[in-house]
């Protein structure tokens, strides 16, 4: 018997990373800008995508990939709003992975066609932990926190707040009913993710949505240049 060490040196996520690279190339080839939307369940992902589409639709053709553990209620909502939508059911998995997005993108391509799409919103599974490690080939990941969840979430879930390229604070219309400490929230983020812009919005009432959409449009244009 002899003992030896065998070097492997590969990422545990190498399969997903390969798929993410392929997706990124595919999105780029068709000039599609992709936004991965992250939040807890019920923070307002669907409402924010709908409100954003309302403001972008004259300029960009948007589509949605809906990730849920089960059901297709969000995809139905999107289609009712006139957005091409593909539903992914993860069957219990707590995040989306590259292979699921590849299939959903195939479906969009077979439907309206990728060249007829400018922006894809991926509504990830509501979860503040697992989606962080899984690159979906997106241009931008955004994190939506809603006021009722409390100002301490960045302290409890630093990974997702650090990972996001933009931070939306939603449901600001109900702020008076909650003692959300804005300065405590901002103080943590100033150290945790000082470069991501922060937007205070109400997806359903419209507050702050224009500023968010103006910034997003700039990012889409910059990616095309």
């Amino acid at each position: 018997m002899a003992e030896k060490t065998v070097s492997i040196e590969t990422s545990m996520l190498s399969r997903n990373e390969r798929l993410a690279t392929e997706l990124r190339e595919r999105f780029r080839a068709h000039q599609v800008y992709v936004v991965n939307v992250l939040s807890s369940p019920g923070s307002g992902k669907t409402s924010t995508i709908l409100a954003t589409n309302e403001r972008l639709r004259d300029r960009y053709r948007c589509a949605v990939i809906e990730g849920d553990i089960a059901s297709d209620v969000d995809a139905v909502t999107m289609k009712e709003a006139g957005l091409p939508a593909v539903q992914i059911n993860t069957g219990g998995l707590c995040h989306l992975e590259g292979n699921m997005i590849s299939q959903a993108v195939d479906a969009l391509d077979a439907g309206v066609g990728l060249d007829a799409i400018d922006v894809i919103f991926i509504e990830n599974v509501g979860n503040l932990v697992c989606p962080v490690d899984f690159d979906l080939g997106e241009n931008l990941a955004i994190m939506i926190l809603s006021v009722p969840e409390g100002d301490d979430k960045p302290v409890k879930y630093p990974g997702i707040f650090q990972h996001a390229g933009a931070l939306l604070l939603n449901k600001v219309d109900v702020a008076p009913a909650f003692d959300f400490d804005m300065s405590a929230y901002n103080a943590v983020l100033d150290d945790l993710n000082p470069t991501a812009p922060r937007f205070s919005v109400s997806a359903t009432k419209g507050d702050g949505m224009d500023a968010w959409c103006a910034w997003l449009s700039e990012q889409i244009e910059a990616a095309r240049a």
Partner: protein
Amino acid sequence: MHELGLMSGVADTVVESARQAGAERVISVHLRIGDMAEVMDEALQFAWEVLRDEDPLTKDAELEVDYVHPRSLCVSCGNEFEHDRFHLRCPACGSAETMLLSGRELDIVGIDIETPDDAPN
């Protein structure tokens, strides 16, 4: 919690590498994981205890994890610094323009195996 999914990929890679190397058994599996990756040590160990039984090569293999502290490089002043999960700003100049050098790793480093004496090298 996706540790089981991650570790199932690790188990496949380990068994494949061990076979290629002519192993009779795997003694240990080495991982390198950044403190900023979203995995829990106990969940990884638990997943490994379940998965290692799936192949006779790995059934006694220990899982050894090296955790890596986050390090960043300040783009403004060139300072390289270690930090925790919460403080990403450059401690020297306060700049927000920093690049994460390490801390998000989820890597399979390698395996220690036992081979028959006449195994090819």
